[in-house]
C-alpha cells in the first residue's frame, strides 16, 4: 500500500480494436501496485471489461504495452457468472483448488468457507440452472475468493445483488483485502460502491475508453457503515459523480 511497493501490472497506451472495427480502448493507461484497491468506473460499453481482460492476459492489446512485473495467483469474477452447467455449486467453487491440486481436506474447508461467505451453503449441491441470477453470481464470487488470490479482478460482481447482500459482501471483500494484503482491481458502474471500496478510482470516458480522471479516495480503512453515512463519503461521491458526468459529457460534445 506504500507507493514504493511493487508494480503488479502496468498498461501503457493500450489500444484495443476488435475485428468488427469497434475501438474499445484508446491509449489506456493503468498502473497497479501490490496491495492496492483500484476501481474502474465508467458508463456501459466504455471498455471496462475489455481492460480487465487485458490486465488478466485473456485478451491481447492491439497496440501499446502491457507488463506484469509482479504477477501471482489471479482470481477473476466475470461479468457473467460463467459456471460449468454440468457441475453443482460446490464443484464449481472447488474448481480453482482442483486445478492447483490442493488436497482434499483443505479444499473442502475452503469451499465451505467461501460458500458461507456468499450465503450459498444450502445450495452446495444445486446445479447452476437451479439458481436465481443473483445466486449464480454469488457462486462465481465464491469461486474467485476460494483460492485467496494475490490479484483479484472483479467485473461488476455485485450488480445483480440486493443492497443488503451487496453491503455485506462489500465489507467482506474489504476484510479479505486488508487481512491478506491482496491487490484488487474492481470494475463497477456504481459511484457509491467505488468510493466505498477503493483507494483510487479510474474514471473512464465512453467508448473508446480512456482514463478521464484518477481520483484518490483518501479515507482510512477499515471503512464501515459509519463511513457510508459520513459527509466525507458524500463528498467523495459527489466529486466522482461529477468527474463521471464530465467524462460522459465530453464524449457527447
Amino acid at each position: 500500500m506504500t507507493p514504493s511497493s511493487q508494480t503488479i501490472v502496468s498498461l501503457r497506451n493500450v489500444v484495443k480494436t476488435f475485428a468488427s472495427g469497434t475501438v474499445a480502448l484508446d491509449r489506456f493507461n493503468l498502473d497497479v501496485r501490490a496491495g492496492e484497491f483500484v476501481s474502474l468506473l465508467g458508463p456501459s460499453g466504455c471498455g471496462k471489461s475489455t481492460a480487465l481482460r487485458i490486465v488478466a492476459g485473456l485478451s491481447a492489446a492491439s497496440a501499446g504495452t502491457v507488463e506484469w512485473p509482479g504477477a501471482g495467483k489471479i482470481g477473476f469474477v466475470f461479468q457473467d457468472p460463467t459456471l460449468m452447467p454440468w457441475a453443482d455449486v460446490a464443484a464449481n467453487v472447488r474448481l480453482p483448488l482442483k486445478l492447483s491440486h490442493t488436497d482434499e481436506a483443505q479444499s473442502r474447508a475452503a469451499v465451505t468457507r467461501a460458500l458461507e461467505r456468499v450465503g450459498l451453503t444450502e445450495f452446495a449441491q444445486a446445479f447452476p440452472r437451479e439458481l436465481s441470477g443473483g445466486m449464480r453470481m454469488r457462486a462465481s464470487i465464491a469461486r474467485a475468493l476460494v483460492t485467496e488470490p494475490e490479484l483479484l479482478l472483479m467485473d461488476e460482481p455485485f450488480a445483480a445483488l440486493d443492497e443488503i447482500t451487496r453491503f455485506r459482501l462489500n465489507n467482506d471483500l474489504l476484510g479479505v483485502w486488508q487481512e491478506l494484503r491482496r491487490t484488487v482491481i474492481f470494475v463497477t458502474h456504481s459511484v457509491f460502491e467505488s468510493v466505498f471500496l477503493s483507494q483510487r478510482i479510474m474514471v473512464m470516458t465512453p467508448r473508446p475508453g480512456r482514463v478521464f480522471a484518477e481520483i484518490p479516495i483518501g479515507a482510512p480503512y477499515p471503512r464501515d457503515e459509519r463511513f457510508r453515512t459520513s459527509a466525507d463519503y458524500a463528498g467523495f461521491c459527489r466529486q466522482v459523480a461529477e468527474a463521471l458526468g464530465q467524462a460522459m459529457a465530453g464524449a457527447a460534445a
Partner: protein
Amino acid sequence: MNERALRIGLPILVLALVVLAWDGTVRAFAIPPYVLPGPGLVLATLIADGDLLWQSLLVTLTITFEGFLLAAVGGIVLAIAFNQWRPVEYSLYPYAVILQVTPIVAVAPLLLIYLPQPLAVLACAWIVAFFPVLANTTLGLNSVDHNLIALFELYNASRWQVLWNLKLPSALPQMLAGLRIAGGLSLIGAVVAEIAAGSAGAGSGLAYRIAESGYRLNIPRMFAALLLLSLAGVAIFFALSALSHLALRRWHESAIRRES
C-alpha cells in the same frame, strides 16, 4: 405419467397397426411368402430357427460391440487429438474423411491381406462407425464457452485439465449424439464386415444368414433374421439414449424436463 404411458403405449400401438396392415396386405392380395411372408410366418420361422438365428445374432453382436467400442474410443481419441493439436487436425482430417467414404466391400480384400481375419473384420466394423463420433465430438470440443476457457487459462490449468474438466464434459451432449449414431452404424458395420471379410459357415453371424436365406430363397428366414437385426438395433439405440439421458438429465437443455 401420462407422458410415460404415451412413450411406451404409442410405439406398441403403431407396431400393432403395422403388423395388422402387413398381415392384412399379405392376406388380401394373397402375396406368396417368397415375395413377402406374413408376420405370423416370420414369427413361426423365428421360433423354429431360433437356435440357429440366436447363435448368429450373438456372433454379430459380439462384432458390433467390439466395433462400437473401437469406434467410440477411436472417434473420441481422434477428436481430442485434433482439438489439442491443430496441425494434427489439418494433416489427418482429410484422411479420416477418406476412411469414411471408402467402400468397405472394396477394401476388405486388402485388409484381409494385411491383417489377420478377425482383425480385418474389426477394422471394417470400426471404419463404418467411427466417423460420426469423430465429427460430433469435434463439434462439441470446439463449442466450449470461451469464457470458461478463459477461466481455466487464468487458473493455469494444464491442457489435460482443460480437456478433462472442461472440454469433455461440455462436449458430452454432442458426443453422446455421435455415439447414438455410431451404435446403429456398428451394427451395420458388423454386418458389412461379415459380408466382406467374415468367416462363413457354422460360426457365422446374421449377415451370412440373411445372404444365405436370400440366396436359397428361404425368405421367411431372411425376414426373421432381419427382424432380429432390427430389434438388436433398436435395443442398442435405446440403451444409448438411456445412457445419454442419465448423463445429461441434470444439466443439459436437451434432457431436462422443464417445469411447466
